């Protein structure tokens, strides 16, 4: 099993991630050959549809190419919902395979917020 590196997606409080480039930049900075990753969305308040789409495509592609695992942690309900929306608009074959997103929370309060939202 590979070691897991934790990456903070944004250092700023209440950050808004809106461009495809921001998603590409995030993944370009990671070295996938020697570890799995946890992408920590703690400070992210909003992601645009474009960001989410690019994020989803790159994550999926890199996981397959490098046989690596990329976990999303501490995402807000809004971020989760946007990633869910774009997952439904990917190509038909992949939709048929029904990809299920995996989320993780490092604080119990965030997990509680999630559970109260379901």
């Amino acid at each position, binding site marked *: 099993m590979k070691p897991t590196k934790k990456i903070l997606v944004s250092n700023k409080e209440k950050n808004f991630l809106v461009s495809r480039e921001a998603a590409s930049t995030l993944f370009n900075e990671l070295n996938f050959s020697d570890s799995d990753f946890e992408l920590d969305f703690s400070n992210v308040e909003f992601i645009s549809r474009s960001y989410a789409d690019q994020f989803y495509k790159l994550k999926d592609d890199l996981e397959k190419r490098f046989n690596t695992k990329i976990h999303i942690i501490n995402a807000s309900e809004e971020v989760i919902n946007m990633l869910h929306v774009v997952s439904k608009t990917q190509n038909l074959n992949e939709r048929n395979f*029904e990809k299920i997103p*995996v*989320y*993780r*929370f490092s604080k119990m309060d965030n*997990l*509680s917020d999630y*559970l*109260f939202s*379901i």
Partner: protein
Amino acid sequence: MEIKIPNRFSDNFGEPLNYIIKQLIIINQENPTKLIFDFSGSKFISPFIIGSIIAVTNHLRRKGKTVSFKVDGNSNVTNYFETICFPNGYNFEGLSSAEMNAKLEEYGLKTFIPLVLFPTGANQAESTLRENVLSAINSILKKQLKLEGSILEAVYYLIDELTNNISDHSSSEKGILFAQFYPTKNYMDICIIDYGKGIRQTYLDSGKANPSTDEEAIEFAIKGKSTKDQSISRGFGISTSRNMITDGLKGKFFIYSGNALFYQNSEKQEIISLPQEANYQGCMIALRVPILPNSQFNFYKYTQ
């Protein structure tokens, strides 16, 4: 160690589930030799709480721990526990199918079923008892829900498939079934839980799959990856059940095993990876099933 059960839980589906996970974290961290569940201040107790407390109690007792229940003169809870047969479940031993139906007839006028701890063995005696018990429970539900046709069939199907999973896979001493119908809110909450080896260990023991994490094991289960030799089309029964309940009936489906949980409604489905200390060794399924006449729902569309 004492765990105080709150006065009441709201309608929120996730509230009791959040409570259960929080308490499991505390139990796992403190690893108490004696545990008391304190119901003395409780009024309305979610069926998810009832089911999970029984499962945790039986699991801890198997490990030699002492678990007890405190009600302190709370007559509401005492009467309720007596009626639902908490904590040992309704005693079905030695009853024929006809006798069960007769004895359980009074539950047809209530909004809950008795607590059922069903046997999981594959031998003829236990299989027959299990079948008779579930048949009697179905009779109660038919009277309570006052429904015919597809939705009633769906409730039967869900309980049958998900309790069979426990018998087929869990290696749990008993399976636990409890359900509460909320007529004014038009839904039913169903808890089906075991204290066996969990989904991941089931796959590992089968030799048919090698999930490296609990989240991967849950993903296998919800996609219907079989642990059985003879058939690739048979899965855990979970894949058909979750689609029936969420897509067909617009209900909610929740499953929790090891360090992972899965949630699905008609809009979304997600796996949540939990912290190590939230580990639940068995498997818990919580369902919220809308009980409304629904002419659009086609039961057979969702069966395999």
